């Protein structure tokens, strides 16, 4: 028994030691280092317009304005909400994830069919065959800031119809915000909607 108590004491003190080293010293040291060397990224890559934070570069938003590009569907609306939704309790607080519908789940087919219908209503010039699959399916995180280049291109007609910009101007904005595969191999070609919409909003004088 005495021997066990001695061993327990060693193990317990060792545990406290590990808590301090791994659970406190390490994260604090990393916090200090990253705050010094990568201050912007460490604080969330915030984007400011006229001195106010309007977005984070890596978090998508639930854009609904017909002059702006729209993101993919999200189970949590990108944690975007209005004051009314907050007061009525419709917004349940910070979250992330997807609906987790299996391919065999009828609810998935229904949700996608609703999305397709909404998209066709918003973009009447687009044919069903031309809708890329990413714009009607939900991402894993519900916060995806990207859409495929094709998904941006199919929205061009709507943007042109609702703003003073020409086709070429909108397409050049997309090209400017397209991120290509690294070395032509790794990743996918994609457009960051948050950055693209900020550029677009500046062009049309929204901000």
């Amino acid at each position, binding site marked *: 028994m005495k021997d066990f108590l001695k061993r*327990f004491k060693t*193990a*317990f003190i*060792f*545990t*406290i030691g*590990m*808590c301090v080293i*791994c659970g406190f010293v390490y*994260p604090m040291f*990393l*916090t200090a*280092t990253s*705050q010094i*060397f*990568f201050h912007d990224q*460490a*604080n969330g*890559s*915030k984007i400011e317009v006229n001195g106010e*934070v*309007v*977005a984070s*570069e890596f*978090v998508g938003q639930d854009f609904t304005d017909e002059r702006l590009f729209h993101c993919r569907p999200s189970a949590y609306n990108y*944690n*975007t*909400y209005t004051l009314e939704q*907050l007061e009525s309790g419709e917004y349940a607080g*910070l*979250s*992330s994830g*997807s*609906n*987790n*519908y*299996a*391919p*065999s789940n009828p609810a*998935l*087919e229904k949700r*996608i*069919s609703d999305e*397709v219908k909404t998209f066709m209503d918003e973009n009447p010039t687009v044919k069903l*065959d031309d809708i890329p*699959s*990413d714009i009607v*399916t939900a*991402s*894993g995180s519900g*916060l*995806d800031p*990207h*859409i495929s280049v094709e998904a941006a291109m199919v929205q061009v007609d709507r943007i042109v119809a609702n703003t003073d910009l020409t086709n070429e101007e909108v397409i050049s904005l997309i090209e400017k915000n397209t991120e290509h595969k*690294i070395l032509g*191999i*790794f990743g996918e070609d*994609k457009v960051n909607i948050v950055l693209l*919409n900020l550029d677009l909003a500046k062009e049309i004088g929204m*901000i």
Partner: protein
Amino acid sequence: MLQIVCTLLLSMVIIMPFALYIYNITTKKKSFVDPVMDKVDDGIYRLFKIDTSDMDWKKYVCTLLLVNACMVLVGYLILRVQSILFFNPNGIGNMDQSLSFNTIISFMTNTNLQHYSGESSLSYLSQMLVIIMMMFTSAATGYAACAAMIRGFLGKKMGNFYVDFTRIITRFLLPMSFIVGLILVWQGVPQTLYPNYTVFTIEGKLQDIASGPIAALESIKHLGTNGGGFLGANSSTPLENPTIITNILELFAMMILPASCVFTFGHMAYDKYHEKKIQAGNDLSTIKDNKHVWLGSEGRSLFTAMAVLFLIGLILCFWAESQGNSAVAANGIVQTLGNMEGKEVRFGIAQSSLFTTVTTSFTTGTVNNMHDTLTPLGGMVPLLHMMLNVVFGGAGVGLMNMLIYAIIAVFICGLMIGRTPEYLSKKIEGKEMKLAALCIIIHPLLILGFSAISVIVPAGLEGITNPGFHGLSQVLYEFSSSAANNGSGFEGLADNTLFWNITTGIAMFFGRYLSIVIQLAIANSLMKKIDINESVGTLKTNTWTFAIVLVFVVYIFAALTFLPALALGPIAEALTLGI
């Protein structure tokens, strides 16, 4: 396809030097960090009054269990009172009993099954002091057990738990976590103590954005093959995994330790062979210097078997996901991108299916896409790899499981062709076979037993959220993930209930500790045996043939135990959808 091949080739190049480094840590060979790290380690031993002499297997196991028990105790207390402690800028409340129980078991066993969502259930202090601490210590525990088992198999003394545990943390996990963490921050992962914040969007709406010490958790989460995310949606969220660079970095980070364990085993087996040759008085010039040995021939057999299993799974997963989602196709959408439901645009099908296969093969459990939304056959691959639990496996334990399969393969082959079953010059006898059989039966027993209970009891059925065959897949996945100490999930399952918290907690506990105890018992029994000399009757285990035999033994065993369950879950779903 090209990027999968390039990523895997690049991973081999990057892992090799680390593997050599880990081999040096395990065998206490000289390495370039000794001048500094020896002092640090000695300081830790002195500070905590640790006796660094060799332990026998019982003492080794008891110390392992005791240290883990203390950590469970401390962690549980912190979770229960986190609301009144400091570093809680988001005002998170205390975690309830059953969820705390599940969470603590989950992180201590290196599983990281999460029945909570990080955004709303853990304070920054809990994320650091409990979650990050356990990510280090559970990985170090698995590694230490593996190091002891290898030593036992090779007839060496088992070593000291505290020494193995401390060395891997101070020499590998801590410095690497810091470097990986810093790269993640550079790419855009937050690392701060400031609370979550709200922005006013250009459309005049509000948006809440999560924040916190994410990068610190993210790096050890992968290096220690842990897998529990800071946020609910884990590595699919752009805050945890913002770019393709972070994605590949996270992939490599989770491959290093399991792959290095196989490498270490191969080298140590080669060293033994080397020593025997010297004892026998052979000409030294015929023996290759260890530095020029790639894996060692015994290690090569295991590595090849694991790699074959891995590639078969990867190809199936990639193919199935490329076919697209039937619910999308039913709406007349052309899917050139593949099944994008539950996937991120920046990763696409290639990096998502690679990540899915790696995370379940190396039993990390981190996800960069939602596994519940995978196509039936694409989702069967992660499920199957967790059922096998030997395709590289988590920090240390994957190799331990593979060694058990190797013993069984040797035994089966021995029976078929009339050779004496021996492995690494040790005779395999009744006692080892009984223990190995017991060890291998625990895993399916936990998975299938608990799954059966869950589909009978109303409390279990209530958790299922997808109708039809996929519902069974959700249940199977949850228990496979628990028993294999993986931690990924078919996240649709409504699992934060008393029933699920307790059952998965038990599955994780026994899946981890029973296996480790039995495996070390086998190692101890082999350690005490006298080496027998190779004769014409010896079945060689360092050949390509043996690697192939091993693959078949693993698949046959899996088919015998899991095929009926798989047929009712993912396979039936695939057939109904016409894939």
